[in-house]
């Protein structure tokens, strides 16, 4: 899901960077970074390694875990923004996985949309369907919506106005399917932590 350099025109890149910075300021004001600093850094390290595991679908495509819903359930969506920001910064600057011009878009997809969607889904569903299934749906929904947003961003190129009609269905469809892996991992990790170390689960 990491959009590389060259996929966004300068205006889209500038707008997404501005949104990232504005949301980052808002998230900083509403986060509890001092309280959760250890967990934020530990989660960033864990998600960084987890994102290196690509899950292949034979005959189709493959994806890696994003971890936005998991981070949001564990530390809240605003602290989760900084978890994913740290992951994406190291990936872009050290391993050139995701571009610099597209960092804003990547952070919006994986650090803003995925945690907010995952957090909202988990909060809404947990009283009704329990920990595992609410975390499963949160993980699935977070990557599906974030993937759709990435499709919209790369499809909105002013050089080819109809691009989004192609990219959005492709991204949404594959991510809805591949999100089952994200959902399963999120569900099992949250269920395990809820039973063994509930102090690490904020919701």
């Amino acid at each position, binding site marked *: 899901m990491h959009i590389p350099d060259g996929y966004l025109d300068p205006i889209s890149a500038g707008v997404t960077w501005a949104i990232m910075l504005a949301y980052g300021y808002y998230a900083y004001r509403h986060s509890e970074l001092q309280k959760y600093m250890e967990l934020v850094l530990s989660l960033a390290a864990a998600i960084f390694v987890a994102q290196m595991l690509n899950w292949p679908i034979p005959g189709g495509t493959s994806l890696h875990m994003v971890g936005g819903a998991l981070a949001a359930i564990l530390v809240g969506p605003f602290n989760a923004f900084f978890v994913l920001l740290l992951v994406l910064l190291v990936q872009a600057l050290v391993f050139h996985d995701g571009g610099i011009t597209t960092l804003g878009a990547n952070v919006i997809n994986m650090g803003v949309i995925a945690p907010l969607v995952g957090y909202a889904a988990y909060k809404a569903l947990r009283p009704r369907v329990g920990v595992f299934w609410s975390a499963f749906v949160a993980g699935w929904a977070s990557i599906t919506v974030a993937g759709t947003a990435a499709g919209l961003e790369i499809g909105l190129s002013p050089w080819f106005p109809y691009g989004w009609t*192609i990219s959005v269905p492709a991204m949404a469809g594959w991510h809805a399917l591949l999100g089952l892996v994200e959902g399963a991992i999120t569900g099992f990790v949250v269920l395990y932590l809820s039973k063994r170390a509930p102090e690490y689960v904020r919701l």
Partner: protein
Amino acid sequence: MIALALISPIFGVWLANLINYHEPLDVAADLINQAANRTILNDTRYQMNWTPFIDYTVPGLPDWAGYIVSAFIGLAIYLVLYMALVGRRGRVKRTS
């Protein structure tokens, strides 16, 4: 995390090569370029690269070994950040 780093080449290199790894994003970009009959979306990461560790490789090492070393480089960065931010906070608390 160390165990995950050690097994990461199974997923990131071996299985990726087995199925000719490509993400949905690559699929969508290819479809857009085909529909437009020209290159709209052009991945420029190799034209303007600034790191020797591009795509989790390490110069001189086979892909699988580079992948493991890359995982440990990433973890080392977070460890340094942890020591700098959390350790510094601990020292400030002790001195106040």
